[in-house]
């Protein structure tokens, strides 16, 4: 059975700030500005799954332009040099980093999956029996970016077995 764990918005925001400071905005000039709008649109997303003592997903979603800018910043490239593979790699690593830090806040016994990247909106993803429990939603250089956390209610399946 999965234990009750709350990783709140402030925990997530702190992790996200570290990611921006380390990779996306080392000069401190383009922070992620909160919008608190969990319905803001996305064009691409990446996710990692956590299983074990807690089950769920961490999802990074953004516009394609924001993903391209993230890849350029991450890989120290010019915007027009960024390839599809660069965007995919960067999105995967961003989900991995946030997911890994979320996992560290959970009781021991949780495992982190390798990242999955889908160059399609977050709204196209389906996480069966999972509910969005927390998220950081913002605008980065005028483009939407979000990092959300989904909790899987694995108990439903156990009860049915």
């Amino acid at each position, binding site marked *: 059975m999965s234990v009750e764990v709350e990783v709140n918005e402030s925990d997530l925001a702190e992790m996200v700030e570290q990611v921006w400071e380390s990779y996306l905005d*080392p000069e401190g000039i383009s922070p992620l500005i909160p919008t608190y709008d969990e319905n803001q649109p996305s064009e691409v997303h990446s996710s990692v799954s956590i299983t074990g003592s807690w089950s769920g997903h961490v999802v990074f979603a953004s516009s394609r332009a924001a993903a391209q800018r993230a890849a350029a910043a991450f890989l*120290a490239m010019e915007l027009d040099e960024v390839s599809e593979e*660069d965007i995919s*790699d960067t999105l995967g690593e961003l989900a*991995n980093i946030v997911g*890994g830090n979320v996992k*560290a806040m959970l009781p*021991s016994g949780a495992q982190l999956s390798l990242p999955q990247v889908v160059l399609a909106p977050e709204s196209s993803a389906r996480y069966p029996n999972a509910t969005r429990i927390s998220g950081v939603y913002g605008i980065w250089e005028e483009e939407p970016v979000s990092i959300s956390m989904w909790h899987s209610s694995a108990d439903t399946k156990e009860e049915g077995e």
Partner: protein
Amino acid sequence: MRAMVIDDSRAMRMILKRIVTKLNFEAVEAGDGQEAMDRLAELTEVPELALIDWNMPNMNGLEFVTKVRADPRLREMTLVMVTTESEQSQIVRALAAGAHEYVIKPFTEGAMIEKLALLGLVPTGANS
């Protein structure tokens, strides 16, 4: 000096390669622990430094550290785990297996350089 960057994320390999190259290391890349072992078997000179991710397919970072420590030819290589695995128990496991140091993602370039300076691989103040 030579450094091996071992991470299944090409993006992270590029970041680490950029940092060590700036510090005058010649960088060799591997996408997982098994590929790193294969590259090490081919190399005539063993790298002085390996920067190792934990979560990787085929052979993870902890298994790689264990294998390196069991090979006398690779004994002089300094092993630094660079990973999101920040649980205390995981850090203890990695250090017990033979890793010299630990860097948690996300990390700044300055933090990585400071860690390498602590290990004596780059001069103190290389960050300034």
